[in-house]
């Protein structure tokens, strides 16, 4: 069921090959390889500054890799002739700070991409948008603006916004880190359901309970490198790498 690193396995949805990233003189990603199979959930973990968010952001080129190859569904996307906007429409992304558009209602946040990127009619888009809100349990909040919603509700709207685009893959950048503790579970429940439905997901998260249950593979990063990867039972249960052990010790 679970992938086995950069080689073999099923049909890959994301392939990252020898990714390097520099911010000025800082070498933050030091030659990373990753392969995410279709229908699997891969978790990225690591201490702050380990490069996990930057690595995730390289997958839809919100952050431009300095070198290396990014393939989504078999197609190389970091090339000049690629229409990156069309590629990104197929890759959903959920941010730590939700990043909903505060001047638009919850529903308008969702329909924006459908209308202006997918070219749907407004009516069609609203139907899809309402369905997406229903799915995350917020059908009654369609007319609210983000500042009027709780953190957990905002994050679920953000997930609905990504889902409505019918993405091939969803990227989650610490989706529960900015939430009050009592709101974490509502977001994780939604993500768990998505995983069960076979959505391909890459999740930067330290919610160990969720990862044990939903992740197929856990990737531990430190200082711009992958130090350990494998099934959650192995990496979270009996880690081989010393730095993984130290990090997990601090989490618990």
């Amino acid at each position, binding site marked *: 069921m679970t992938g086995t690193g950069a080689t073999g396995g099923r049909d890959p949805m994301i392939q990252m090959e020898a990714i390097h990233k520099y911010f000025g003189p800082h070498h933050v990603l030091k030659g990373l390889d990753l392969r995410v199979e279709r229908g699997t959930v891969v978790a990225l973990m690591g201490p702050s500054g380990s490069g996990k968010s930057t690595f995730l952001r390289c997958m839809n080129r*919100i952050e431009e890799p300095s070198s290396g190859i990014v393939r989504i569904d078999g197609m190389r996307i970091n090339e000049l002739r690629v229409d990156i*906007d069309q590629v990104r429409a197929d890759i959903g992304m959920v941010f730590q700070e939700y990043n909903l558009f505060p001047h638009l209602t919850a529903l308008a946040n969702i329909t924006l991409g459908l209308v202006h990127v997918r070219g749907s009619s407004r009516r069609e888009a609203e139907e899809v948008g309402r369905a997406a809100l229903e799915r995350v349990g917020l059908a009654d909040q369609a007319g609210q603006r983000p500042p009027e919603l709780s953190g957990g509700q905002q994050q679920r709207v953000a997930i609905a916004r990504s889902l409505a685009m019918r993405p091939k893959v969803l990227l989650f950048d610490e989706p529960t880190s900015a939430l009050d503790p009592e709101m974490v579970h509502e977001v994780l429940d939604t993500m768990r359901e998505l995983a069960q439905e076979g959505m391909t997901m890459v999740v930067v998260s330290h919610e160990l309970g969720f990862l044990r249950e939903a992740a197929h593979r856990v990737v531990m990063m430190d200082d711009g490198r992958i130090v350990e990867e494998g099934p959650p039972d192995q990496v979270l249960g009996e880690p081989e790498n010393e730095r993984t052990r130290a990090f997990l010790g601090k989490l618990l």
Partner: protein
Amino acid sequence: MNESESPQASFLDRWRLRFGHLPWYRRYEALLLAVALWAAGGAWLLPDAGRPDLPVALAVIAWYVAWFLLVATVLVDREKPIWLKRIGSLSVLALFAWLFVRYSGTRWDRVQDQFFAFDRMDGVWEMYAQGLAVTLQLSAVAAAISLVLGLTLGVLRSLHNPVLELFIGLYVDFFRAMPLIVSMVVIFYALPFIGIRLPAFWAATLALVLMNSAYQTEIFRAGIESVTRGQSDAAAALGLSGVQTMWHIVLPQAFRTIIPPLTNNLVSLVKDTAVAYVITVPELLTNAQHAVVWKRTPTPLILSMFLYLATLIPAIHFTRWLERRSARWVAR
């Protein structure tokens, strides 16, 4: 305490016990004494009405400053009641007005028939209507062009392209440093010598546009940069292009920050149209000045003053209303 409550203690003793430890400015009898001394000083030194000689004038000013300082001691004391502070502040203004009326040498009897000689204004009202029309045209045309130019340059500047940055930066610096009246005079009186002739109206428009779009570039840039990185990240992640992101996500949010300084800028633009007087554009001030010569009374100037106020005070309140309205959906 016991002593103060005993019947033997005199009224003065009790007074001293209750208030003696306070500094002088917290003791009302000391303050009253100071006011009385100040009033006595005034009665002694204030001359009769009319313009005084320099030494006497200086003495009057010193007397006024003394009152100012006395009020200041009341104002800076946190324990003084607010009504006393209000009366103190008003008294400083009232005293100034009274001294000005008494000693400035102004011919108050002339105000009515020189500044408000409405009986001599036939024919002037039409000039006002024409002048106001030109002022409004000039404002509208200059505002429209400079908004388009300012928005364009502001958006371009927010891209942080080094080449654009250099040129737009130079443009902005140049026209923010250049006095409006100088660029207007240069465009209208100097450029014809090298063959560039613009009608007065368009020379004024050009000068206004050059200066105001430089200011507006900075206003738009600051507004755009006030929208957080996460917003454009989220828009990009949805697949919106750079132009779509700017139009649907960044600019609508930037306008919240932009509206107050931008409307301020537009109000100054309308005021600055009066500078076009120096290059003979027949706007409000020019026509008022012509009427002054024609009717031999400064009344038209006073009237034009009120016309500017009547136009712009509502505009300022409209901008306040806009600010409050746009503050409604402010994010955390």
